[in-house]
């Protein structure tokens, strides 16, 4: 029993050290965002939270259209999330629960598309969107990501186990067509899976940098990440302000994560085990 106790204590010591390393950058971000830039540049540097947080945040709002960028990012993230949830779960429902000619071939093609790195298609994707006249518009951020192979694959695995065939047969007997079966049988049962896919998609779109950097060419219509980098580039000397901007961009996401985080983490792990 003594060895068990020792093992437990050592584990907690290791884990607490890890937590410190994991969370320290956020503390440091707050320290820099709440002090003045000269204080940060000073030696020895200030290590405690200062009193200039509101002032620095105000400077961010004066220099970039922070709320505009946030709103744009929010629209893009919500738009992609809603479409992905609908298209992916609908396709997953069909793949998981129905036999149809070509099903396995289509699913195989879907799996192969995993292999293609997104950068490969970057240049022609840009050219295509330019042909459509979508460069600089919200459409360019939302439509290309509106359905994805990962979500369909993941939801299909989920649907296979979660939806009993009897429920579908019962709905068929009641005269429900495919889409009615999806709405009445599929969606309610898939809800926990949709919650995971929703948070996952939202976080990814919110944090994406390369794609919005390429397609949002109007400097007055930037997503949060690109606007943040712009702030960093142009006003890099005012470190406190840059860090206040970074802090403001991180807070909403961490909020979303802490609310839905516990299940989310379990599902990420479960997803990895299925591959």
């Amino acid at each position, binding site marked *: 029993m003594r060895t068990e106790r020792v093992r437990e204590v050592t584990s907690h010591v290791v*884990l607490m050290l890890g937590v410190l390393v994991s969370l320290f950058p956020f503390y440091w971000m707050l320290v820099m965002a709440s002090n003045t830039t000269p204080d940060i540049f000073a030696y020895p*540097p200030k290590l405690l939270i200062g009193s200039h947080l509101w002032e620095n945040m105000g400077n961010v709002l004066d220099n970039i259209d922070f709320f505009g960028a946030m709103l744009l990012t929010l629209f893009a993230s919500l738009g992609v999330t809603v479409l992905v949830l609908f298209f992916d779960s609908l396709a997953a429902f069909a793949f998981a629960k129905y036999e149809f000619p070509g099903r396995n071939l289509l699913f195989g093609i879907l799996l192969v598309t995993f292999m293609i790195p997104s950068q490969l298609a970057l240049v022609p994707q840009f050219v295509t969107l330019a042909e459509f006249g979508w460069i600089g518009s919200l459409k360019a951020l939302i439509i290309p990501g509106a359905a994805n192979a990962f979500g369909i694959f993941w939801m299909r695995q989920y649907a296979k186990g979660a939806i009993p065939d009897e429920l579908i047969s019962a709905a068929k007997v009641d005269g429900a067509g495919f889409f009615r079966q999806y709405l009445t049988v599929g969606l309610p049962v898939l809800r926990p899976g949709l919650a995971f896919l929703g948070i996952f998609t939202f976080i990814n779109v919110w944090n994406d940098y390369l794609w919005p950097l390429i397609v949002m060419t109007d400097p007055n219509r930037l997503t949060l990440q690109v606007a943040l980098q712009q702030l960093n*580039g142009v006003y890099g000397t005012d470190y406190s302000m840059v860090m206040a901007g970074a802090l403001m961009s991180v807070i909403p996401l961490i909020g979303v994560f802490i609310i839905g985080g516990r299940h989310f983490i379990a599902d990420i792990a479960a997803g990895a085990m299925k591959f």
Partner: protein
Amino acid sequence: MAVSDAVRPATTVRGSDTDPAKRPNKFRQAFPQYVAVSPFFILFAIFGAFPVFFSIWLSFHSWDGIGQLKWVGLEQYSYLFTDPTFWKSITNTLIIWVLSTVPMLLLALVIANALHNATRFRSFYRIAYFIPNITSVVAVTMVFGSVFSNNFGLLNAFLTSIGLDKIEWLSQPWGIKVAIATIVAWRWTGYNAIIFLAGLQAISSDIYEAAKVDGASPRQQFWQITVPLLRPVILFTAVTSTIGGLQIFTESQVLFGASGSIGGPGDGGLTIVSYLYDNAFGSNQFGYGAAIGWALFILIVLFSIINWRLIGGSDDERLTKRAARRAQRKIAAERAGKEYADAH
């Protein structure tokens, strides 16, 4: 649906000898399912498949994005092979990948073991370890950029306070790589630990009990039970971190993008994707950008196969397969010998 169009003539022919009302066309019957899966395939055709094929075509051309495409054949690729900056971007990416992945996976294994043993505060630990992963790379890089900063960085302040010399992290090629690798490792260690933990929890405790009864030491248990049974999970993390590692871009772009040179001093932080980005969207050489994209794709496939070979294919399985092949050969040889004897 192309599939149903192609098959319809055959079914109409068959319809002449069987009643079409009795045997409904199974393609037409499956129409709702085709509608359900079509959004992905339509979007993929427009934004995935077409661009991929177009990028092959594009990589054989010289194009600035506005004028005419000029056919140059394999010229982009032959230039790629002799382009020292391209090779530098590959070496940089590989060095950053090794510098980040090796410590990251080892630390993740240690953390996962500790998480497995600790019974209290589990959900607190999990959330604390996962938060770095969901935070945006841009914000994180800005914080680490200040920590590694040459003049007033926290790290240099610490080094000076213990009597060491300052290190110009962000102006030396290796310092830049260490900084980028640190950001990557910091973001992904917790994620990988959670995945290892799921793998650990899937191993039945009966196996360990049995090993203990047989007198196996903790070290033996680790190498003979934990590691072999974790193999599929280790493979998953190795492959995903390889794919992610080869695509590193944002870190170096945020650190140096505003300074005018995308790779930083001495191009120490120039990665494959940042070289692609710089060529295609910085200097409008779309054809060359596409060629770099294909080189990246080949590297990803190559390294995924290497990972697969190193970690995935279990030795036992390979030996069994070899034994089976040998047995088959023997049987075939014997049969051939017999046939020869029968014929004569």
